[in-house]
């Protein structure tokens, strides 16, 4: 549970995500989805409640610790490094993932494996042509991809994606989702998205969050037919 002042943003949410799941989290704007991710990753502290990761209580664990345990997220609103080149950003993330972050002797560019892996990620997301472009000079949609690239660089065990496709054109969001779908099955993925085409195609299980509480949880078909979900979220066009 998390409150902001008197306002209850998430209210006694009990969400269990199975290992290896492809889980989507949907719900009206302001339902508390992003807040929930913030709670899971330690970006916010819960006012009450517990967070467990792979059987371990991480409620009091610092954000970066959770990340090192494999709990990785993307941000709904880009959080990037405006003055770094794309390659630098990703290489930095890779080196952190490999625990090289405190090495100060050998240049980053001299760590061959790191650079190779960063390049591989860029290639996968078709970002290589922009490898030397500064992040700030890229159009919004391409910046969105860097956000994903950084998350992939962290080799997540659990990946929390907050509207990854927002701002990415339909054609490219398809490819983006293929990249995500290609991730090994052990990686658990939680997805927030308002584009129902993507959600229904990708998710194996869906939770609907309304006003800070879980309304229903179930298989996509069930959700698509659920009258309350239609009423508060989907509207008429779907189902």
């Amino acid at each position, binding site marked *: 549970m998390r409150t902001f002042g008197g306002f209850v943003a998430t209210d006694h949410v009990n969400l269990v995500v199975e290992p290896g799941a492809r889980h989507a989290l949907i719900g009206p704007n302001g339902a508390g989805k992003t807040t929930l991710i913030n709670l899971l990753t330690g970006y916010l502290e819960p006012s009450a409640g517990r967070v467990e990761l792979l059987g371990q209580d991480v409620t009091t664990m610092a954000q*970066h610790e959770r990340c090192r345990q494999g709990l990785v997220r993307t941000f709904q609103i880009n959080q990037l490094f405006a003055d770094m080149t794309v390659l630098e950003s990703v290489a930095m993330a890779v080196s952190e993932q490999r625990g090289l972050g405190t090495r100060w002797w050998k240049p980053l560019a001299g760590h061959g494996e790191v650079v190779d892996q960063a390049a591989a990620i860029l290639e996968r997301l078709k970002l290589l042509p922009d490898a030397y472009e500064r992040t700030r000079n890229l159009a919004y949609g391409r910046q969105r991809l860097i956000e994903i690239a950084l998350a992939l660089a962290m080799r997540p065990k659990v990946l929390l994606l907050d509207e990854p496709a927002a701002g990415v054109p339909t054609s490219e969001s398809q490819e983006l989702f293929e990249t995500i779908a290609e991730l090994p099955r052990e990686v658990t993925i939680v997805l927030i998205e308002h584009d129902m085409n993507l959600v229904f195609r990708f998710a194996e299980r869906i939770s609907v969050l309304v006003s800070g509480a879980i309304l229903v949880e179930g298989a996509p078909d069930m959700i698509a037919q659920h009258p309350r979900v239609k009423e508060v979220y989907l509207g008429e066009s779907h189902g």
Partner: protein
Amino acid sequence: MTTSIRGTANADVLTRFRRSAHWKPLEYAFWCLPVLAYFAFPGNYLLLSQIAITGLFALSLDLIFGYAGVISLGHAAFFGVGAYTVGLMGSHGWSDPLLGLLLAALFAGIVGFLSSFLLLRGSDLSRLMVTLGVALMFFELANKLTRITGGVDGLPGITIGPILGVFDFDMFGRTGYIYSVVVLFVLFWLARRLVRSPFGQSLRGIRMNALRMPALGVPVNRRLVKIYTIGAAYAGAAGALLAQTNQFVSLDVLSFQRSADLLLILILGGAGHLYGGLIGAVVFVVLHDQLSDLNPQYWQFWLGLILVLLVLFARGGILGTAQQWIESRRQRTQARQRAGSTS
């Protein structure tokens, strides 16, 4: 646009990145300058060593500000700790310069380590003020302990022994100059490795977006403490050099003016390039010297004017502007090529 960048193309992309850490010809040229200066200006060794020392001091601030983005208006505190360490050692008969340098860096580093915890939260402005406050308290402390520090009058009569027992500090400051430049170079070289390492890269990340870093598994605070400590130690070394080459320490090593000038020098040269501080130091010290010779009463006016013009027309300091210029030229040629290919 081509989508398949496999094989050779990919390798090409990476070699460019790999090469980015190599020493560039311009850098070699830059480091010839102090050697040239040695022969070109034999009567100005004190000025030259002052440039080297100021450069080192600016470098120390660049590490914490230019890379990690922690702004400080109280860096003189560490400089002063270094200078007084050497001064007090010298006036109590511990005159070996290298030992002094080492201990000065060590003490400054310890003070830096302790005070870094005050800076972990807060905006630029509050950091500015906290660092300033800490430095002012150090200043007051040294001022109050007249018996130990000599107060405003300073600590005269510091004896500094010969370096390695061989090279004596002479009146012309020749030894002092060579010594300062060698120390500067060694520390610069270390700093250069540091900022290009993964650790250095993570500092840049923290500067650009500290909120994002924990989500990449980076313990931001610990990194900041580390670099702040290193920066403080560097500043302490610079202070030690000043005390040794001048054989004199007084309160002004801790003054607000010194911190403010330093910030100015770094920004003038361009923060976040390592060389910015050095170039800023050259320009500032020489300018100061020349202007105050030409027009002693109003040199401040000209300095002010230069600052204003600099900010209006050459933002990002000397190096920043040079970089922008190169980048915009690149863009222009690209645009021209594009125009050529589409039409």
